[in-house]
């Protein structure tokens, strides 16, 4: 097993004339929280979309567990054990909270069209197991009470938690968070930070994109700073904070 859980090598993405990710090199150590920070439009979300297969790289390699995983469809990437959340929350708003998390158990259950349609859910063991597991993950993020609510009716903070629970229900090895604290109030942000640390303690590798510097500096093991799709600095939170390049990138010349 290689030390690096995820490795981006000369990763590149060009949209028309815009170079969103510019020959980026970045590695993520197993079992750590690595944060990627950078100004708006730096290319952070694009990096996530490349890793998870929503976009195809214009060049470079994405190595996961030492194997190249470029160009796979998102659902194949998910099957490798990579989960993610979205910057603009993507929940299934017409389903209940519990059902949302049950969808997260998709890859951990198996019945297909035929088996699904022969018997009602209450006669099927797998269904019970799925809903049981989903409840467990819902409690894990502290939302057990909301199980029966319609997901669309939740406030944004709870929606972000729900999205996290759904990702956790996949029992992933690597979890990518895209601005999990954006739109949250101070209390919710703290809760989210604690949750992410707890996730790390479970042995899941976390990559975090976030603008809330306090949160980032609090929980990260490593911070990578990018600007215009390029890696400009990397280090511990303390190192990065005093790096002159980073300060220029954020404050301008």
């Amino acid at each position, binding site marked *: 097993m290689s030390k690096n859980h995820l490795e981006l090598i000369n990763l590149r993405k060009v949209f028309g004339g815009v170079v969103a990710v510019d020959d980026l090199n970045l590695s993520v150590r197993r079992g750590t929280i690595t944060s990627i920070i950078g100004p708006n439009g730096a290319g952070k979300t694009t990096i996530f979309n490349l890793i998870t297969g929503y976009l195809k790289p214009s060049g470079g390699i994405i190595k996961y567990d030492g194997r190249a995983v470029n160009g796979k*469809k998102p659902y194949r990437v*998910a099957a490798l054990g990579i989960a993610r959340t979205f910057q603009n929350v993507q929940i299934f708003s017409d389903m209940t909270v519990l059902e949302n998390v049950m*969808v997260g158990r998709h890859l951990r259950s198996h019945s297909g069209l035929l088996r699904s349609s022969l018997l009602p859910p209450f006669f099927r063991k797998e269904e019970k197991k799925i809903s049981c597991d989903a409840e467990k993950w819902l409690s894990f993020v502290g939302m057990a009470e909301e199980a029966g609510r319609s997901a669309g009716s939740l406030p944004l903070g709870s929606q972000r938690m729900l999205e996290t629970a759904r990702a956790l229900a996949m029992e992933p090895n690597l979890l990518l968070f895209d601005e999990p604290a954006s739109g949250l109030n101070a209390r919710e942000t703290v809760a989210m930070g604690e949750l992410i640390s707890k996730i790390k303690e479970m042995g899941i590798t976390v990559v975090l994109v976030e603008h809330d510097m306090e949160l980032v500096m609090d929980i990260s093991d490593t911070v990578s700073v990018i600007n215009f799709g390029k890696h400009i600095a990397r280090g511990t939170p303390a190192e990065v904070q005093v790096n002159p390049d980073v300060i220029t990138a954020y404050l301008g010349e």
Partner: protein
Amino acid sequence: MGRQDYIGLCVFFAVVLTIPFLITNDYYISVLVFAAFNCLACIGLSLLLGYAGQISIGHAAFVGVGAYASGYLTVEMGWSPWMAMGAGVVLVVLIALLIGVPALRLKGHYLAMATFGFGTILYIVAVAAVDFTGGPAGLSDIPAISLFGLVLDTDKRFFYFSWAIVGIGLYFGLNLIHSRVGRGLRAIHGSEDAAESVGVDTPFYKIQIFVLSAVYSSIAGSLYAYYVNYIDPGPFSMMHSVLLLTMVAVGGMHKVWGAVIGAILLSLLPEFLSFLTESFQAVGLEYNEDYNTLIHGSILLLIMLFLPEGLIDGLGRLAGGVGGMINIKRHQDSAGT
């Protein structure tokens, strides 16, 4: 886990069993048999449209394929009706794969137009391929189907038979919705990106449900052929595809029960209208089949504008609203005394 749905299913079977005792007029029974065909096709369409969120405005073509496969194979090749129905299903699966695989890569308007175009092509073929379909004159002398040696050639027998099949279709549909696959489909509807992020193979799921819904239509078509014993291209036109869409929308797209209710209501509508206008004949108003297009279009538009969730949901909310008002009134009353 959707217990109400299964209670509903029991009620459904009870109602089906009692109806022929309540309605003795064969004509009305036959109207209900036609409703059953629409119901079956609509259940399939609602799985596709309401749950997976994929539109098709070509589903009447699948009904047509089932009907013509049954008609041609029994009349020209001498197959047994059951065999022919099975062959129709196989044929529809193949056609649905052929059209669905490329079409379901498309979204929204493109998918709508692709299914529209495809439905029109099959309709043109039904009219033009005279050797197989009999052209505009159609195929006649299609045999009746029999079950355990009992020939289903009376309205009442066919009523039980067709509604039993609708019941089975409902049972499968309901199980599917409350399953891993059903959740996967609803997830696709909710957010395709999110569904893929948890590992739902969206292209595969879409094609599966497209094929399944086509199979429902095909069986409806075969049943139609065995009941009417005659088919021509008319009932499989684009207008019928839109009618199926209307039925699903009227009842409520996001519930299989919506499809059932919508199909029954719209199938009975012409009867109701002609009954209604009989009373107004003095005024010179007379219902005429030619008005159907306009009426269906208006219903579809009104539903989409004012009750986009369909009648079940809309009436439920209305009832809830009225109930709420009564409650408030009661509170005020008790406060007054």
